[in-house]
């Protein structure tokens, strides 16, 4: 394992963990969306590093998957933001009640 791959694998693990923590402890939905996007970025980083990006051109299949993933992430985020506007309109707040509907 070369050093570059090592650095980026550990970075991906760290960013994913940070995203999970952010998702669990955030109050505002907007922050939770940011955390989910961080987790997505970490997974993309993991895929490309494991595809051999640290030593040369990475495997084109995971590259295409990550490119697809980036567009899916922005689509999902945009839809979630529309839901968030709806939530604000209905409840007057952009936070989710942790005890609601459990």
């Amino acid at each position, binding site marked *: 394992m070369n050093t*570059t791959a090592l650095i*980026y694998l550990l970075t991906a693990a760290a960013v994913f963990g940070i995203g999970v923590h952010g998702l*669990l402890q955030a109050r505002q939905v907007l922050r939770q969306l940011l955390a989910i996007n961080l987790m997505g970025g970490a997974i993309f980083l993991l895929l490309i590093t494991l595809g051999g990006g640290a030593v040369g051109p990475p495997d*084109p299949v995971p590259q295409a998957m990550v*490119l697809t993933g980036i567009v899916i992430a922005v689509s999902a*985020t945009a839809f979630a933001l529309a839901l968030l506007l709806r939530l604000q309109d209905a409840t007057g707040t952009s936070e989710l009640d942790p005890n609601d509907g459990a």
Partner: protein
Amino acid sequence: MIEIAIDLIIAMGVVGLALQTILGASVFRAILMFIVFGLLMAMAWARLHAPDLALAEAAIGAGITGALLLVTWRRLQAMDGRTPRVGIAARAPWLSIASGIFAAALIVALGWVSLSLPAEPAAAGELAWQRLPEVGVSNPVTGVLLAFRAYDTLMEMGVLLAAWLGARAVASELRPGALPGPAHAEVPLVGALLSLVVPISLLVAVYLLQAGGSAPGGAFQGGAVLAAGGVLLCLSGRLEAAERSSITERIGLVLGLAVFSCIGLVMLFMGEPMLAMPGVWAIYLVETALLLSIALTLVLLFAAAPGLRRAP
């Protein structure tokens, strides 16, 4: 040695910005940190020999996502107080500590497992490289996206369209289209900037599309750059929300899916596998249609409107 140092600086920056994103004192600050995180991720992609991803991350991950987040934050502020607030119970403080411990354990486990995996191209990737000359493009990512795994790309367009339809369905009567706040006072410099940058965004989009065959680029990056031009026009009030989608906009929204599916089906009837590309011209035709659809969908998502029209 110097390369390791650069990797370390990028890695520390990425991790630091991710921390700032979840810990940022205000939501606005968190969004800004996320945008910078995306830009630094683009540098990480460049270091990992993936310039296609670097372009996509900078244009879509940081640019369009950032613009969407910021404009939604602004709209939420404008809507604040419109409806009475629902009381929300406070969360137990130990939950934050517990999730922190859980996340730390997850980081260790994930790091441990990923280090034991082989970091090299797998069989499918090798095969894609070998069979690339049959496709007629020399950029392997474009080849995989449009020839070897075309159904992924087709479904991706489906997801983008579904996201727009979903956004229309849930937020249509809110009419958040018009941007509130400090009057869009006409600043002379903005007009000058637009008259230069919008044509350049069109030029760069077409260049990225054309370059996508043999160099980093392609429909997604080009579409995002074109969408950025549209977002600028919306932000400066040149384009404003319309009540309904015009027929041109409806065609534009489904153009990518329609052209892609048509070619796929025609090939099926001619006895080829579905979605097989009859030639390089078909790849460029599909990519052009995808670019237009992606750009239009992203701009309409940003404007949160069914359609756009020129401001009077």
